[in-house]
């Protein structure tokens, strides 16, 4: 999601006459696209803005903050950044910057007008602290033509916000309610990417598979959206893979899986976050499904799409997690044979329901559980990768490895592949690779 936000921010800023620099020291405009999923990320924003504000004594500098921000953080950041706005108001950024003057930022200019503007913004924000407008301009945001950072991989936002209220997460408070992007816009963007020969297209949203539910029948649902994209793929005759992230297990219907099975361009890789393998932990997390419910989803995927890879997200050390509950999570790692799991040690996110509970699993225990589960994943993943040996897979070459002697790519199932070659011309192409080495989290092979 952050990548997609970034791809839409860049053209808006460039249209104002700014050019990009990799050297932070020479920038006149510095911004942060924040992520509130973890407190650490927000702590980094505080650290960074203090550093930038020190530079204002010796340099013209304008700072802005956008992205995923809690209302309480937003009020604090308004005092530190020159401009703070929800991502949905991105289209208004030029207007906001014009209030400061593009050439002479407010920190040095300090005209009464600018001081008044900033004070008014702060006052207004404080007054509206109980009613921050999170999604008012999300449709404008979706109209921004993105500047893709890759010529073969793209992210397409289809939905914003979340109505699920998992107790460990603050997204419903930072991104607001679920809002679906009109399907015509999504299909137009996907068609344009197909026309430009993109190879990997990822549909993005906090709950992609509840797409359309907020429109009460006035919009198609997620399976229908996937089906239309599948048909675009069939019509094009081109080879490309369409992914989506993140779905919620509660909305993962058989229909979604059936459509993926049916259309070749819908990638046979499903990322479905289980978060825990214990019913009581799932209750505490307010996930609204049981391990049995999740088991049924995996069974359906395995039956309808036997070649599919399955990725997941898991939190260890969530409030109240006992040894027994953690062991249940270890069991599902083996039972469901995930190809990959993004494992996180629980950390308190202010604004989430769980932030009001004691974070009662010691850090040491969290680390131990993290390492144990990672070891389990390593074994499971390695076994899965071994099954690839001797077989040939279509692989999207994404770039060179650091040592320049290998190309790095991904299978349709998003398994990392290393290929001994230095041929730059293959980057962005899908090639056949015969797998001859399988390690824990990747495979290697020769182009055939």
């Amino acid at each position, binding site marked *: 999601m952050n990548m997609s936000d970034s791809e839409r921010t860049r053209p808006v800023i460039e249209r104002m006459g700014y050019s990009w620099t990799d050297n932070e020291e020479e920038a006149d405009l510095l911004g942060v696209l924040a992520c509130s999923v973890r407190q650490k990320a927000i702590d980094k924003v505080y650290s960074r803005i203090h550093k930038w504000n020190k530079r204002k004594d010796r340099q013209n500098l304008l700072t802005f903050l956008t992205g995923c921000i*809690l*209302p*309480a953080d937003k009020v604090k950041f308004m005092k530190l950044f020159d401009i703070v706005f929800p991502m949905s108001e991105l289209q208004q950024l030029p207007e906001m910057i014009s209030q400061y003057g593009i050439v002479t930022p407010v920190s040095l200019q300090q005209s009464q007008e600018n001081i008044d503007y900033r004070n008014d913004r702060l006052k207004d924000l404080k*007054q509206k*602290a*109980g*009613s*921050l*407008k*999170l*999604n*008012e301009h999300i449709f404008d945001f979706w109209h921004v033509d993105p500047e893709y950072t890759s010529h073969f991989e793209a992210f397409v936002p289809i939905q914003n916000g979340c*109505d699920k*209220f998992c*107790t460990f997460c*603050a997204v419903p*408070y930072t991104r*607001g*309610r679920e809002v679906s992007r009109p399907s015509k816009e999504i299909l137009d963007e996907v068609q344009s990417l197909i026309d430009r020969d993109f190879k990997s297209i990822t549909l993005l949203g906090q709950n992609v598979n509840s797409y359309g539910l907020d429109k009460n029948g006035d919009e198609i649902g997620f399976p229908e959206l996937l089906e239309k994209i599948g048909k675009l793929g069939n019509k094009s005759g081109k080879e490309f893979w369409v992914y989506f992230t993140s779905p919620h297990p*509660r909305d993962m219907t058989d229909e979604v899986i059936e459509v993926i099975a049916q259309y070749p361009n819908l990638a046979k890789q499903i990322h479905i976050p289980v978060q825990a393998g214990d*019913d*009581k932990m799932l*209750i*505490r997390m*307010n996930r*609204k499904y*049981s*391990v*049995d*419910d999740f088991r049924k989803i995996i069974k359906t995927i395995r039956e309808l799409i036997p070649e599919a890879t399955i990725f997941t997200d898991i939190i260890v050390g969530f409030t*109240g997690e006992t040894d027994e509950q953690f062991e249940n999570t270890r069991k599902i790692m083996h039972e469901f044979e995930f190809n990959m799991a993004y494992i996180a040690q629980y950390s308190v996110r202010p*604004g989430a*329901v769980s932030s*009001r*509970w004691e974070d009662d699993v010691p850090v040491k225990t969290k680390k131990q559980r993290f390492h144990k589960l990672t070891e389990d994943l390593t074994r499971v993943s390695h076994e899965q990768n071994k099954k690839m040996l001797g077989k040939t897979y279509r692989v999207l070459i994404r770039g060179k490895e650091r040592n320049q002697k290998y190309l790095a790519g991904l299978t349709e199932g998003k398994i990392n592949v290393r290929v001994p070659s230095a041929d730059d011309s293959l980057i962005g192409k899908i090639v056949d690779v015969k797998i001859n080495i399988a390690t824990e989290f990747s495979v290697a092979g020769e182009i055939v």
Partner: protein
Amino acid sequence: MATDYHKTHRVEEVKDLTPSAYIVRFQKNGMQFQAGQNLNLGLKGDTEKRDYSIYSPEQNEFLEVLIKEITTGLVSKKLRRLQEGDELEVDGPFGFFTISGESRKKNKFLFIASGSGIAPFHSLALSYPEMDYQLIHGIRNSDEAYERKHYANGKYISCVTADKSGDFHGRVTDYLKQNPPDKDTLCYLCGNVNMIYDAFDILKEQGLPSSNLFAEVYF
């Protein structure tokens, strides 16, 4: 935490049920909801908001929430001081602790509540009086049998722990052990997490599949 989705609703009444529990009634403003859902609400302009199950039935012209005052809480104490005409900020409805019309027709239900966790069951029972249900309510004292007269005869069973004034003396978990439900019963649990965990274990030991168990935890 508040968002632009919070709408203003005017308070109609605050009714005390016990020294620590009360009902806030406020304007419905046309909100459509399904019994069992919850709202996120708080004082106007206050960033602190909390989730409360809707207590009133779907057909009423107002909305009600049942609130247990938490002595260390940031929101429940403020809400108790509300007066008629004051403004609340309300977002919702949310949640999936609901029962479809088809399920209501063909299934038998056991509602298991502790304390103010009875709120969604009050809404369900009054919204769908034809439903085949039994409600067991774990409370410390009989005065916490909030508005028990609202339930049809024999439908409500209080499990009182402090004395023998209830329909059953002991915890809801003790009641469940002595009165196991039929294995095809759909069990809905709402209240504090410890009660839910214990009841969950008992019901599973009694042979109910986890697909028959639904929980809404109050935090």
